[in-house]
């Protein structure tokens, strides 16, 4: 499987004088886990935001599944199969875990101009949501208010919501951020189960996670991609070593 699912072509985005995305081109192949790494301020989240549609690039193109999605809204891209998790956990804190996932299921089950039936008693939403919670290991926590879940559980819940939209490409922005060693190990094992089955773009600071999950890695420094390659190639790349891996001993 070497078909290109996502092609980023000469993407450019500046905030004033700061070139956050400086003519980035990038291919993501169907089925691969493609990690994007880089020091703080390299523009990783800015890039993800342009891919998911929350930020508009100044120029360049984003093609997804052969289709130009550069000008689609975030909501429209979700329906094309692009799903995103956020660096800062983004869930519905005042809803139960099950409600959270059921909402994501509902968002992809036709329009929501249905005014009368109780959505919380709709097996068409609740059953798939429950199955996904079981899959991510939150089955026993289904009725807990999302705000009351542990931090790691909230991250898992967000991934569950991403899965509920049946994405063709998952954009995961630092899924193990703020997790303890054990939690983060569990998340890495969980994400490893998708290897080869699901296309993933993974932005991550945790190098253990990156090197154990990624099929390919792109290194972003000051808004530019300075290298793309397999984990072994990236480790051996002298530019990367000087620009990033050597720096601060991360």
């Amino acid at each position: 499987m070497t078909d290109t699912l996502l092609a980023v072509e000469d993407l450019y985005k500046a905030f004033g004088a700061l070139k956050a995305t400086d003519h980035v081109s990038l291919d993501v192949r169907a089925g691969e886990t493609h990690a994007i790494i880089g020091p703080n301020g390299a523009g990783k989240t800015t890039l993800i935001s342009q891919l998911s549609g929350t930020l508009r690039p100044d120029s360049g193109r984003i093609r997804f599944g052969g289709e130009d999605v550069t000008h689609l809204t975030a909501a429209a891209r979700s329906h094309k199969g692009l799903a995103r998790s956020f660096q800062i956990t983004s869930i519905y804190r005042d809803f139960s875990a099950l409600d959270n996932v059921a909402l994501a299921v509902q968002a992809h089950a036709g329009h929501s101009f249905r005014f009368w039936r109780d959505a919380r008693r709709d097996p068409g939403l609740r059953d798939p949501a429950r199955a996904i919670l079981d899959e991510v290991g939150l089955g026993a926590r289904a009725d807990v208010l999302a705000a009351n879940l542990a931090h790691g559980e909230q991250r898992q819940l967000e991934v569950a919501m991403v899965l509920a939209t049946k994405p063709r490409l998952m954009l995961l922005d630092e899924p193990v951020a703020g997790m303890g060693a054990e939690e983060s190990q569990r998340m890495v094992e969980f994400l490893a189960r998708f290897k080869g089955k699901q296309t993933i773009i993974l932005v991550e600071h945790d190098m253990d996670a990156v090197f154990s999950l990624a099929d390919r890695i792109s290194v972003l420094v000051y808004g530019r991609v300075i290298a793309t390659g397999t984990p072994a190639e990236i480790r051996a790349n002298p530019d990367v070593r000087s620009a990033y891996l050597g720096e601060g001993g991360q």
Partner: protein
Amino acid sequence: MPNRGRLVTIVVLLAALAAVPPLAAVFGQPFYLDLFRRIMIFAIAALSLNLILGYGGMVSFGHAAYLGIGAYAVGILAHHGVHDGFLQFGLAIAASAGIALVIGAISIRTSGVYFIMITLAFTQMLFYLGISLEEYGGDDGMRLAGRTQFAGLLDLRDPLPFYYFVLAILVAFLYLVHRLVNSRFGMVLRAAKSNEGRTRAIGVSPYPYRLVAFVIAGAMCGVAGALFVNQTAYLTPTFMSWTRSGEIMFMVILGGMSTLIGPVLGAIGLLLLEDVLQGWTQHWQIILGPILVLVVLFAKRGLAGLLPGSGRDD
């Protein structure tokens, strides 16, 4: 359905409202019939505001507009000799929904303070439009030419049937809001309030859902306006004054936002308090103000939060 405790609270409250007319008759105090009918009309207005404010997160500071539109629809038709309730209420609903559609379509593109200011501005426009309508009383307002009649069914000139008509509408709207906020539509509306970015990310653009909620709320408040002009038997632009919008909003906050029964409790609480304090002193607002501040500070979930079986949601 609401949980058992909440359901019991709602049933007791509605039963108490239903018992007001016989009790008022027994004690020879027909004034209370009038007072509680007024309270229920405001409860309907507050209930409609709660749909967009409490559940939708849209801080509309111009909800009195729809009260005014409903009132003017009835008043203008009556002025021209049309007293038929189906026509009057039909026009009240259609006009308030239509104007809510226009105001909402523009306002909902903004958020935060801008949304508050733009909804206020639209309502001020309608307020001054009311003042400029010399034919319909202008600044001074005009007497309602005659109360609404539903031919052969109901005549709002009779205080008692009028009272139970208002109660029936309140009950119907409570049930309507309960169904709405728990439906798929309501879940999206509440989700967009809870976390707009997440809602877009899962593939839902909140705008059309918010707009539909805004129109439904406007139409419901239009009904309250049609009832209100029958209550006062007098039509004036002050129905749409910005202080009126504030009053309705306060009922929602006092009673408990995003609770079903909160707006009803808020309307009862605020208007009863007003009534009692007015009996004591003409400077009653000096006492009312601090009481409201204390409630907001110390009962964060409003009066509904103090009741047994309280909780947000449905």
